[in-house]
Structure formats: structure tokens, C-alpha cells
């Protein structure tokens, strides 16, 4: 009996330690492999957000898919910011995508808030679907 306990307790501790280490070292959410939780047409999302039919609380921590027209592109050495329908800001990590203003694209990304400076709904870690 004693032997059994001696064996079980360390096993539990070992599992707990491994699980903690796993949680601790888990990388941030990978958007490429996650399915979108909600999808919108860019205009629908903008209109519903402006009329409070959709609020930050509905979008937070969710992977959101939007399709719309590119109205502005801003490039830096590290990323590309694409603005859809003058109201949704998407950050793309890769800088190699061949995008042009006027293109219709579908993109998924993680909601990160509303930018009050330019009045844009902000999506981060975006991934281009098409």
C-alpha cells in the first residue's frame, strides 16, 4: 500500500510539472491554423460596430474573418497594414504579399480593439485567405 502511494504521488507531481511547463511555454495563438470564429463583410462589421450592434465584447479574443476592399496600404520593414473599406485595420506579418488598393480580399485576424485615432477596427496577426 505504502509502495503504491510512494509511486502515485511523484507521478502526479511529475504530470503537474509537465503540464505547467507546457502552459508556461505555449506560444501565442497561431491564426493560420485557427478557424475563424465569426466572419463578416467589411461594411457590415463597420456599420454594426458604429451603431453598437456589435461591441468590443463580442469580438474580443476572437478570430475574425472579413472580406472587403483595400482602401489603403501602409508598409514598414516589419509588417503591412491594410485598411479595408476605410474602417478596418489589418496587420499582416509577411511583407511579401502583392496587394494593391482596390483589391477585394478576405482576411482573418485577432481583434485587438478600436483605434480612436483613425476610427478603425483593429485586427492583428492577420492572415490572407484570398
Amino acid at each position: 500500500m505504502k509502495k503504491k502511494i510512494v509511486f502515485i504521488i511523484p507521478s502526479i507531481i511529475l504530470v503537474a510539472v509537465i503540464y505547467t511547463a507546457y502552459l508556461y511555454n505555449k506560444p501565442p495563438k497561431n491564426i493560420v491554423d485557427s478557424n475563424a470564429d465569426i466572419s463578416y463583410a467589411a461594411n457590415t462589421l463597420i456599420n454594426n460596430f458604429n451603431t453598437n450592434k456589435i461591441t468590443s465584447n463580442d469580438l474580443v479574443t476572437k478570430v475574425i474573418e472579413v472580406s472587403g476592399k483595400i482602401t489603403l496600404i501602409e508598409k514598414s520593414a516589419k509588417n503591412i497594414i491594410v485598411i479595408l473599406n476605410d474602417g478596418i485595420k489589418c496587420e499582416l506579418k509577411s511583407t511579401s504579399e502583392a496587394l494593391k488598393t482596390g483589391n477585394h480580399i478576405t482576411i482573418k485576424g485577432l481583434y485587438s480593439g478600436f483605434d480612436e485615432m483613425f476610427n478603425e477596427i483593429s485586427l492583428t496577426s492577420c492572415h490572407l485567405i484570398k
Partner: protein
Amino acid sequence: MKKRILFFIAFSAINMSIAQEKLTTRTGKVIFQSETAIESFSAENNQAASILLVDKKVIAFNVLLKSFKFEKALMEDHFNEKYVNSDRYPAAKFKGNFTNEIDFKTPKIYKDVVVNGNMNFHGVTKPLTVIADIKVNDDNTISFLSNFKLNLEEYNVQIPSLVKDKIAPDVAVSIETNYKKS
């Protein structure tokens, strides 16, 4: 008709002068670093929004806290949920003025520009003075570089005593933005 044309010309002239003095970016880089003897970590945000009003000598930043990327998911969660409460206070905002005469048309580096302003972070607004380098580039873009410390306690960011040794009371913030005419 003539009146209309005149009005149109006058109006576009006003429009142009406004457009010229407003420089913007949506790809500002903000890094913060916490360093203690036990643990060091940093987070990076490459989508800070910023406006530079050349004539008024005003600079403003709007940084969404959820756009900060950490190495580990758990750190990101803790940062957002436990420390900065980004659901409630989604953005850090800074707006400041500088007095230096800067010729935004001639390439030059202006060192140690003093920017006096207010920082709004975690529901607290406090005066903050930062020292920055402003660089007028050859391609007519303008770079803004600044490093400063932010005391977490001043902005009511509570650090549990259990992790007190792992998180620095003053985090080092570095900002790098590059403005283009909008």
C-alpha cells in the same frame, strides 16, 4: 460660376495646406522591456497609430494594448487580463508638444527634442516628458525615436507580491515611428 471656381480654388488651397502639415503612421513600433535580476521579458507592437502635426508641433500616439506581442501566450494573457486590463482600458495614449524649430523640408537629425505631454494609460492620465530624436529623412519622411521609463505603480498597475521580483517597477519603453504625408 466664377464665384464657384474661386471658392473651389480657395477651398482646395486650404485643404492642401492642412494635408501638408499632417503626417501619420499606422506602423509605429513600440517595445517595452522589463528587466530584473530574475527575469527579463519584452513585448513588441508594430501597429501603433500616430499623428505628427508639423506646424502645431504636436505629436500624438494611440497604442492598442492587445496588439503587443509576447514570446509566450501566458504572458500575453496575464498582461492583458491581470496587469493592464485591456478590456477596460484598451489603449495607451500620449499627446505632447515640442518647441524646437524643425525644418521639415531639409534632411537633418534633431537630437534631444523635449516633448511635454500627457500619458493616458490604465485609466490614469499623468504628465510625461520624453526626450526624442526627430529625423527628417531624404525621402521627406520623418522618423521619431524615443526611449523613456514608465513607472507601473503611478498608473495603478498592480503587481502581486508573488511576482514582484520578476517584473520591474519601471518598464523601459522605446518608440520608433516613421511618418509619411497622409
